[in-house]
């Protein structure tokens, strides 16, 4: 199986909306063993100047991996998910994600290069919070590289 080199430069537009809920922030925070009060206690978050509970710094992976799924599940891409290894990850927060945010992600395939019999694929998700009407605010940029192992790798 080979990775389609034409993937580079491809984009997937914002699809479903992700509603950030308080209980999801608390659940994710517990799952990464976070204890900061701003993830759990609305009053503590407000005391720091936030509108509501603050998501942990890697919470955006939920939205980014949903966006990535569009590429991984795209039959034209030729990616075997069982051979995917996460190589690197970055989060750049333009502002913190808070409970009540309604988020969408645009996915961009920034790089595809052959590695042995496999390929390294770099994707970027631009995550926006929906505002009133058609307005939206840039919240987080995530970049991720995955290595799709070739046969025998």
């Amino acid at each position, binding site marked *: 199986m080979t990775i389609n080199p034409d993937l580079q430069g491809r984009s997937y537009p914002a699809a479903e909306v992700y509603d950030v809920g308080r209980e*999801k922030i608390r*659940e*994710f925070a*517990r*799952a*990464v*063993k*976070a*204890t*900061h009060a*701003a*993830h759990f206690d609305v009053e503590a978050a407000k005391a*720091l100047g*936030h509108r509501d509970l*603050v*998501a*942990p*710094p*890697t919470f955006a*992976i*939920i939205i980014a*991996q*949903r966006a990535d799924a569009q590429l991984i599940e795209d039959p034209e891409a030729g990616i075997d*998910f*069982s*051979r995917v*290894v*996460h*190589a*690197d*990850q*970055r*989060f*750049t*927060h333009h*502002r*913190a994600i808070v409970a009540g945010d309604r988020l969408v992600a645009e996915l961009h395939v920034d790089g595809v290069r052959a590695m042995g019999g496999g390929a390294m694929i770099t994707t970027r998700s631009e995550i926006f919070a929906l505002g009133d009407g058609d307005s939206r605010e840039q919240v987080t940029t995530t970049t991720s590289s995955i290595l799709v192992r070739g046969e025998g790798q």
Partner: protein
Amino acid sequence: MRPSLTELSPGQDIGNRTIEVTRTDLVKYAGASGDFNPIHWNEAFATSVELPGVIAHGMFTMGSAVQLVTDWAGDPAAVVDFQTRFTKPVLVADTTGTTEPGATVEVSGIIGKLDAEANTARIDLTVVAAGQKVLMKAQAQVKLA
């Protein structure tokens, strides 16, 4: 309270943290994150794809390591950038029914660089499991007071 630039210098220690990991933790992370890849909870599947056993999600390790920075910074929103490379998997033994962890991850952090113009500190994390560095170039940028 967020730290302020004037009280910091490069090389300064921000502390350390020990994270004990069980198979149950990986199931919880799978549910919380939506990443249900069976290499993180099913031994037979993991070994069938030539892994030595069940491994932690790289994102579990990355996400739990950054808590050292969050707590030091005093506000999760102060962590404006966080990146890493995943170099070695964290193998998690099945210790179900005991009080033993399946793996132990040691996290420590120092101030790597200060940027007076941006008013940020770069925290460099060292993350070790079973004697090996499992994350490389694990760096968080913290917005200071």
